[in-house]
């Protein structure tokens, strides 16, 4: 079974990489991009029976730094 974890900087935390991408899009002529946030996607290949609670624990302990990042878990 698989799980996908999306990790994003929390709202209000400056995302300099997202800002750089936003500037680059503007330079390419794509108007109207008001904001870009860049996160990461972590795909987990898990043993059968691993619960969403287990994955949440992985996020809390290692995959996300909850001081600055939020995360979302998708099972399957």
């Amino acid at each position, binding site marked *: 079974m698989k799980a996908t974890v999306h990790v994003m*900087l929390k709202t209000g*935390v*400056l995302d*300099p*990489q997202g800002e*750089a991408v936003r500037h680059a899009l503007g330079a390419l002529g794509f108007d109207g991009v008001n904001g870009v946030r860049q996160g990461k996607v972590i795909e987990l290949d898990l043993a059968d029976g691993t619960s969403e609670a287990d994955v949440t624990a992985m996020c809390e*302990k*290692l*995959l996300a*730094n909850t*001081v*600055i990042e939020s995360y979302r878990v998708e099972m399957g």
Partner: protein
Amino acid sequence: MKAAVVVFPGSNCDRDLAVAFRAAGADVEMVWHKDTDLPEGVDIVGVPGGFSFGDYLRCGAIAAHSPICKAVKGHADRGGYVLGVCNGFQVLTETGVLPGALLRNAGLKYICKTVGLRVETSQSAFTEGYNAGDVVDIPIAHHDGNYFADDATLAALEGEDRVAFRYTDNPNGSQRDIAGILSPNRRVLGMMPHPERAADAGHGGTDGQALFRAVAGQLTSA
């Protein structure tokens, strides 16, 4: 004084930190990240700069869960002294020994240069060799040195006189120009600049020496 300096895969300032501690009079032992215990009788642990575990996932995140870091956290919890420099500071925030987190530099560039730091407090074993308000020149070398903490944490740091150093010309976007902070008991210092790179006349500056001398003086007389 007995110091232990942690070595992670990717540490590149471990020997520099050991040299600075030794020059200040400390006995230094290197400890490997897989070790589960610190050497007997260690007064202070140095968590060095570098790129532990390649900085994969986040700077310091994987190192924070290494076996030795449990021992370092235990040492800090028992009231032991810890100095975390650069990646070491990132590791200490990831372990929760110090509050906040280090984000990518606001300008997105890796910055390697000597910067001015204002000493905000002399009330710690690390900073008592300086006067509050002194400006010292210490090198930085980091990509993720942008200190972040929520407003309540920042208020607590400032209210409890736990900001050790501020940048005089903020190079990385750190909140409130913070370059280094102390733990509530003032025995853990985390800082992004590298005092060990300004601890010998051959380095082109010696403003970092006072930090190591102060710690050695404090812990030797204790």
